[in-house]
């Protein structure tokens, strides 16, 4: 049960990463590898501030802002200096590795005694459950602390999802979506597509950094290596989410990314439980995303062939 709750909690926290990837990958068709640096950046900024006793909400907010700056850098490299999108992301990601080390001062910052958002969540849960140590959920004894942290991460993911949905229905959000869809039309409507890309990548990486900040507070440390493979992880969540919801509607895509992240984390937890070597995790994730990217095309091709045979 602890395993399940842990998987769900991390699933919800990483769903913020998935929402960031949804913006860059699905809305802009931009494979923004900055995410691997900005998730660590979010964790590094939040952890470093928290060890200095900063208010957890403020520390998390500053982490988000740092992530937005990183995303804006990638956007500016791409739009103002006309550097290939993937390369822009690689440059910023590489630079962030050093920056993250500077922020943390070493490669790993533990949060043993610091007050974090998770400490607050445990406190709130303590009040809610009347101070009980364990709660009975459908016959299982569950730690009240873990349950409150799960509840908090769910609320955080749901809240961000709803805010994002509302944002996409505003003038600015609509312009952003149109930019990914048809930049020429967007310019003809008086919108600078370059500015929209910079802004969109800033929002995307802000979400990724938020995910990193929460992850650091949940697992109790920030590590300079924690971003490796995270973009592919986010992609896997987005792709599973699309398979789950089917339609390409905005509210469904957002819900899908949330569900995809949780489901993917659950699958991983189960596979690890069954004895999968943790070292193979990233290999399997990469193969999974590869298959998810090519299978729809293969199915369509097979369909065409059938039609061809029938016509002949």
């Amino acid at each position, binding site marked *: 049960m602890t395993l399940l709750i842990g998987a769900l909690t991390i699933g919800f926290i990483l769903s913020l990463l998935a929402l960031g990837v949804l913006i860059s990958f699905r809305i802009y068709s931009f494979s923004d590898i900055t995410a691997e640096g900005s998730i660590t950046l979010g964790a590094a900024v939040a952890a470093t501030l928290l060890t200095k006793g900063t208010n957890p909400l403020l520390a998390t907010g500053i982490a988000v802002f740092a992530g937005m700056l990183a995303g804006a850098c990638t956007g500016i490299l791409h739009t103002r200096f006309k550097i290939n999108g993937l390369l822009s992301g690689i440059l910023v990601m590489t630079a962030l590795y050093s920056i993250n080390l500077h922020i943390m001062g070493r490669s790993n910052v533990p949060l043993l005694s610091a007050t974090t958002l998770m400490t607050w969540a445990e406190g709130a849960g303590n009040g809610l459950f009347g101070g009980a140590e364990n709660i009975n959920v459908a016959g299982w004894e569950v730690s009240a602390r873990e349950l409150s942290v799960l509840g908090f991460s769910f609320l955080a993911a749901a809240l961000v999802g709803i805010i994002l949905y509302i944002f996409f229905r505003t003038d600015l959000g*609509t312009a952003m*979506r149109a930019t990914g869809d048809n930049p020429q039309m967007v310019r*003809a409507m008086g919108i600078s597509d370059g500015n929209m890309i910079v802004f969109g990548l800033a929002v995307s990486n802000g979400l990724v950094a938020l995910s990193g900040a929460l992850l650091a507070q949940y697992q109790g440390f920030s590590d300079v290596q924690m971003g490796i493979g995270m973009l592919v992880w986010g992609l896997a969540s987005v792709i599973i989410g699309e398979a789950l919801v089917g339609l390409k509607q905005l509210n469904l895509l957002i819900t899908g990314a949330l569900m995809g992240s949780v489901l993917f984390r659950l699958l991983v937890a189960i596979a690890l439980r069954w004895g999968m070597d943790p070292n193979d995790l990233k290999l399997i994730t990469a193969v999974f995303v590869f298959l998810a990217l090519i299978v729809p095309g293969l199915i369509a091709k097979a369909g065409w062939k059938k039609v061809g045979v029938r016509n002949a």
Partner: protein
Amino acid sequence: MLELTGVRKTFNAGTPNEVRSLQGIDLKLDEGSFVIVIGTNGSGKSTLLNAVAGTFFVDEGSIRLAGHDTTRWPEHKRAQLIGRVFQNPFSGTAPELSIAENLVLSARRGQSRTLGWALNASLREQVFETVKSLGMGLENRLDNAIGSLSGGQRQALTLLMSTWLKPKLLLLDEHTAALDPKSADQIIQLSDQVIARDKLTTLMVTHSMHQAVNLGDRLIMMHRGQIICDFRGAEKRRLRVDDLLNRFEEVRRGDLLDETAAEMLQRTYV
């Protein structure tokens, strides 16, 4: 309204692929005039429209529009003054956004985008009425993605979008060339209606000689990056398709003569 002075543009300058697309264009459009642009392939018609729209900056010369010197304005800034319909029906709309969302984008053409709700009730009502005026039944499909519509329907919506906020200048770049004849007729009628109703200053490129003689109050013919003919007023009204074809034939013969003359010179002197 629109004034081009000595506009020149060369693509791939200094390479074997050098193309001198615009070679000293001087053109002045009066307010409310509807100007047709025709010309041979590669004559610079579309380049002329793109230069005005700001797709690229010109090498020389100046462009003034509605009292502003727009020569160095980026494309999206010029969109405050300009409405555009493209040759490709897919260029003017965002396919994954709904019909209503596309129109809402155009209702704020050239204004800054804020966190205001995009599709409020009153705007939705206006969108409904505007789309209904097309008579295509699209007003009942406002929430469908625009990508599910036909080229003709999308082009009709693009025309609505480019003229929702009355532009100082409307640019139509062979906007019926990619449509089937029936849709093309519909779009031409719609364009003519909108232009007449709002008295829009318009620059329209076309390949169709029929459109060229039947529409507009002025016609310019381009060849090799220059304006070679300019018909206005009574002269424009008297123009027939045959007159235009004869002109094209003359131009073609002129070209042939140039080439044979060059060849002869080469043979004699090289």
